[in-house]
């Protein structure tokens, strides 16, 4: 799979995702995100860590507006949406942002009434208006790339969890996204199936995809990510290159959290 967006040099990279002062309140007083700022450059791989309930998934889901942020701004590839404004213009910008971002869910969420191939062409056909024959060659290329071209006619119920997640990744990539969001992609998998999914994510990173991942997969965080961010209580605790964060965390809470997950 050719990726035309392969980044050239660290400096010339443009900002792919920019989040400013993001707040999310569930109901009246469950303040999950408390003023999050985040910039992700094109081609950067950022991993978000943090205890459960810290707001990692909510942040990810705010970026493609599966959750509506309560306040703040989100910019993806130059498109800025202000939270709290529910105009028609904002609505269409949200749809644009969703087309630019691919998302992988913990529970895969493949469409069970469609085969693997139908799942992958669904986005291009329904959202981009391509004909099936236009969409199929690239979809097959993607299935090949995730190693599942022989499973193209299987329904999701006949695939293992790891295979389902790989089809889900292919489904997202079929939209040619600029950034991929991974929301605990391996948490629902049996241990022996985690590797095949992480492997695909790793190859995606190598090809220069911008990745924002919430994962507890330490190998990915340590060896693939360019930056690790630790969140707790809806705020950043600490961030930096993985070697720094894992070997020499500065904040007490990061130390506690890392000690907990690394053992």
């Amino acid at each position: 799979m050719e990726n035309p967006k392969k980044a050239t040099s660290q400096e010339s990279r443009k900002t792919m995702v920019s989040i400013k002062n993001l707040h999310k309140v569930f109901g009246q007083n469950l303040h999950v995100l408390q003023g999050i700022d985040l910039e992700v450059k094109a081609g950067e791989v950022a991993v978000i860590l943090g205890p459960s309930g810290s707001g990692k998934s909510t942040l990810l889901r705010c970026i493609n507006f599966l959750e509506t942020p309560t306040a703040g701004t989100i910019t993806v590839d130059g498109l800025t949406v202000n939270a709290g404004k529910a105009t028609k213009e904002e609505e269409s910008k949200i749809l644009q942002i969703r087309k630019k971002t691919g998302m992988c869910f913990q529970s895969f969420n493949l469409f069970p009434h469609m085969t693997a191939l139908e799942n992958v062409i669904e986005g291009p056909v329904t959202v981009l208006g391509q004909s099936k024959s236009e969409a199929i060659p690239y979809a097959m290329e993607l299935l090949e790339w995730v190693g599942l071209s022989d499973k193209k006619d299987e329904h999701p119920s006949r695939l293992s969890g790891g295979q389902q997640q790989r089809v889900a990744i292919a489904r997202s990539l079929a939209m040619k996204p600029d950034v991929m969001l991974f929301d605990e992609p391996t948490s629902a998998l049996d241990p022996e199936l985690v590797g095949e999914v992480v492997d695909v994510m790793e190859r995606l990173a190598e090809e220069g995809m911008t990745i924002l991942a919430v994962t507890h997969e330490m190998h990915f965080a340590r060896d693939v990510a360019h930056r690790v961010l630790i969140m707790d209580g809806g705020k950043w605790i600490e961030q930096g290159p993985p070697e720094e964060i894992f070997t020499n965390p500065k904040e007490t809470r990061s130390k506690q959290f890392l000690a907990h997950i690394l053992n």
Partner: protein
Amino acid sequence: MDNSSKMNKSSIPPEAQAILKQVADRETRFRKNMLISFIVLTLLAIGLFILIKLDFKFMIKWLGFILTGMGFTLLVSFLAISLACILSVIGALGRLSSNPVANSLATAYVSLIRGTPLLVQVYMWYLALPQLGKAIEELGVPGIQSLLTLPAIPAGILALGVCYGAYMTETVRAGIQSITIGQREAAKALGMTDGQAMRRIIFPQALRVIIPPISNEFIAMIKDSSLVSLMGVWELSYRAIKIGRRYFQSLEMLIMVALIYWVMCVLLQYVQERIETYMARGDRRMS
């Protein structure tokens, strides 16, 4: 799955094979006994018919006449169920809508129609609507009375369709709500609009859940279509009752018409099973 079990057959120890054989035998015996029970039941029924001196000749003589009424029954049922399907989808979308007007309209529709007897509704469409038309015409809308004076069959189709539409609205709503939120989120994450997500992702899956209860409604409607006989339509049951009364042989006629309804419903049930098997195609782990 099948292949692996065949491959392993040789490694299954003889004592386990004996148990497997017992299980298989038990299943065969069960099926055989079921069949015997059905045959005995049928023979008993026929015996009873002969015992009470049922006039089979009379039944066969009038069979053709009664069956001609089936056309009306099927016409009314099919058109009414089509109307009900359309209304139920619109109603369900209304019930799930965040638009207060659409939501309250749909809720009122379901509540009102489910809360009143079908019999009253049939008469409402047939007898009360012309009066409403007259009142509106007197308010200054010309021609509305004749428009609202419906012949028996259209009135029956509307009454049945609107009534069953209300019940089915709740079925369709429940079906749509049974699809996990993750499906809608996956569709949205791809950039689909709400309409596209509903059409491509949610509804096709909901359909699988709602086919059995909808078939149920259809079977009930086939039988409720006999209510149009109240308006003098010569459908199945009306004919049977008329002839039965005329010759004082109601028993024969009623048994016959009951059997005809039954056969129709058994056929429908078969169609339902075929549709369900087709809809479940994404669900089979082993074929």
